[in-house]
């Protein structure tokens, strides 16, 4: 539980700040109940500095030995050809900023087969060094093989930060590694920055209605995953070339216990691919039923876009789960985003706030969605959409 010192004056600020209702006032002093999860929300709001988390007895590592911002660059495979997943470039762009602030080098980690082809392009994102593990045995992703390779590299070179894409591969690999190294890992960050030498990892917390800054002050490397489309790709510097460090790491025998029998790729047109669509039309609870979503489909077809949905609409069964936009779904960064009947919970906002032009249509003028909209239309989307479709036909 949180520790409360003599300095407490009973102002009650911590009581209001506690997300779990674990703090209360008794005899003009704060008291803490069993509901405390030691999340630490109260520590920073106390004007007297009376609250603290219990000091851990673990021996502190020598953090100065850890240097360098690493990005695990995932090699994608669409069944026909292999390529660098664009999120890798996004992470390198962000990693460059972080490395500059720290005064450390930015490194890409590339595991696969014949990865040399990717060196020039990766270099143009300000990458100082590329660690490459390249052999036919890494042609296909295998958790144990890749985890072993990365752990070997991290132990050898001691980076201070390792970033992963929040893809199926990144989300499979990163917790395996953090567990082995006894380091922290923050999932699906929406913001990364440096404060007092620590990586500050921002993400929605507690069901997605509030933001949290997370840090790992006593552990290195600091690890985080980030969804595609959260960070923008930086302008490249053509001609720049990173230092290449090639490593040969054998695949452990246990990796053979897992065998991929078949791989099937979904036949998806770009129009249906939410995260790459130039226009996204999204619907929420306010669309009420399937007929409401038919209107969205019609508008998306007309504008050459894809249809997504908020968690509320998914829960109502109005759209498939993979079309969910938000923290626990897809993140989009389209040119146009139209939010129809979506109230705009934080959990949704973080999945679409980076779109260029956001238009909200909602009956409730106070809906939070309007806080992120460039244009807000106060009205019933189910009434307005048919009129829009008529107009566009002309």
């Amino acid at each position, binding site marked *: 539980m949180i520790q409360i010192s003599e300095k407490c004056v009973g102002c009650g600020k911590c009581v*209001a*700040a506690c*997300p*779990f*209702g674990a703090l209360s006032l008794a005899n003009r002093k704060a008291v803490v109940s*069993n509901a405390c999860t*030691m*999340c*630490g929300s109260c520590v*920073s709001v106390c004007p007297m500095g009376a609250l603290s988390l219990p000091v851990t*007895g*673990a021996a502190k590592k020598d953090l100065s030995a850890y240097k360098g911002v690493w990005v695990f660059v995932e090699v*994608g495979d*669409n069944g026909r050809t292999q390529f660098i997943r664009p999120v890798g470039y996004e992470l390198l762009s962000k990693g460059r900023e972080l490395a500059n602030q720290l005064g450390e080098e930015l490194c890409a980690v590339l595991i696969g087969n014949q990865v040399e082809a990717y060196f020039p392009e990766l270099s143009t994102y300000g990458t100082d060094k590329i660690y490459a593990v390249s052999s036919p045995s890494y042609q296909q992703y295998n*958790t*144990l093989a890749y*985890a072993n390779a990365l752990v070997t590299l991290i132990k050898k070179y001691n980076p201070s930060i390792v970033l992963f894409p929040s893809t*199926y*591969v990144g989300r499979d690999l990163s*917790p*395996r590694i*953090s*567990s082995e190294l006894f*380091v922290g*890992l923050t*999932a699906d960050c929406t913001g990364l920055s440096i404060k007092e030498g620590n990586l500050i990892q921002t993400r929605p*917390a507690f*069901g997605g*209605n*509030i*933001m*949290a*800054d997370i*840090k790992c002050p006593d552990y290195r490397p600091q690890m985080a995953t980030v969804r595609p489309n959260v960070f923008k790709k930086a302008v490249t510097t053509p001609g720049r070339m990173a230092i290449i460090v090639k490593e040969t790491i054998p695949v452990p025998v246990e990796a053979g216990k*897992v*065998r991929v*029998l078949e*791989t*099937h*790729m*979904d036949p998806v047109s770009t129009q249906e691919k939410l995260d790459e669509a130039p226009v996204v039309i999204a619907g929420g609870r306010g669309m009420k039923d399937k007929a409401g979503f038919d209107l969205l489909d019609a508008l998306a077809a007309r*504008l050459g876009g894809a249809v997504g949905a908020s968690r509320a609409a*998914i829960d109502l069964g109005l759209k*498939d789960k993979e079309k969910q936009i938000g*923290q626990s779904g897809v993140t989009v960064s389209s040119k*146009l985003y139209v939010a129809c009947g979506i109230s705009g919970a934080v959990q949704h906002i973080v999945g679409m706030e980076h779109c260029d032009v956001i*238009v909200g*249509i909602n009956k409730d003028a106070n809906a939070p969605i*309007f*806080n992120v*909209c*460039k*244009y*807000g*239309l*106060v009205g019933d989307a189910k*009434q307005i959409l048919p009129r*829009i479709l008529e*107009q*566009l036909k002309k």
Partner: protein
Amino acid sequence: MNIIVCIKQVPDSTQVKVDPKTGTLIRAGVPSILNPYDHYALEKALAIKAKTGAKVTVLSMGPNQAVAVLRLALALGADEGILLSDRAFAGSDTWATSYALATAVRKIGKYDLILCGQMAIDGDTAQTGPGIARHLNIPQLTFCETVDADGNQVLVKKLIEGGHQIIQAEMPVLVTMTMPADYMPKYPSFMAAHKAQDKQVFTWTAADIQADVHKLGLEGSPTRVDRIFPPPARPKGEMYSGSAVELANKFVEILKKESIVK
């Protein structure tokens, strides 16, 4: 065959509310449920049990009231429940949680297949399953839609970017489950609920599982919450109201202005 399903009690997230003034969570009156991904994983384990006669043990970590989700699992057909409950576990992040659960799995001893939901809806991290697998040093198969087990092999349908794979692996193995979009959790009949009272639920403390206390709770958690804050407010855009026709005209105007249509 011995199957262990790791489950978690979570607040029914669609009903989590935040006080607009203080930005803190309102917990009063928010019902708790079994994390839906775990619910699905449990149903898959019970399907394997129906086919092979496997023993299904459910394992959870949480406060005493979390025993309710174990009872639900027993009513649905699990054989035995174990609750890790101890002040020493409080404040655990995913690292310490997966360490504690893995240590409990070691104490259970016999296991061939460990099933987890891919993530909990109150955390959305998807880290605990792989963490347990690493602590036990067994292979993991994450984000699986289906799972089947026979002999010493499991067969899963695992989601990958833009498709899926059929993967076979040797047990022991840990599998984390995603769930279909139209998944409706199964609930027990009245009689099944009644009979589950007689099934055993063991409560284990940190000492019971002989865990290293330095790897539990706050001390065993590398991550710290630096601060919690409401999402930053931004300047409001242009707002329009009027009849449906007027707003539709406005929309088309916006499309033109932003050069989406000509």
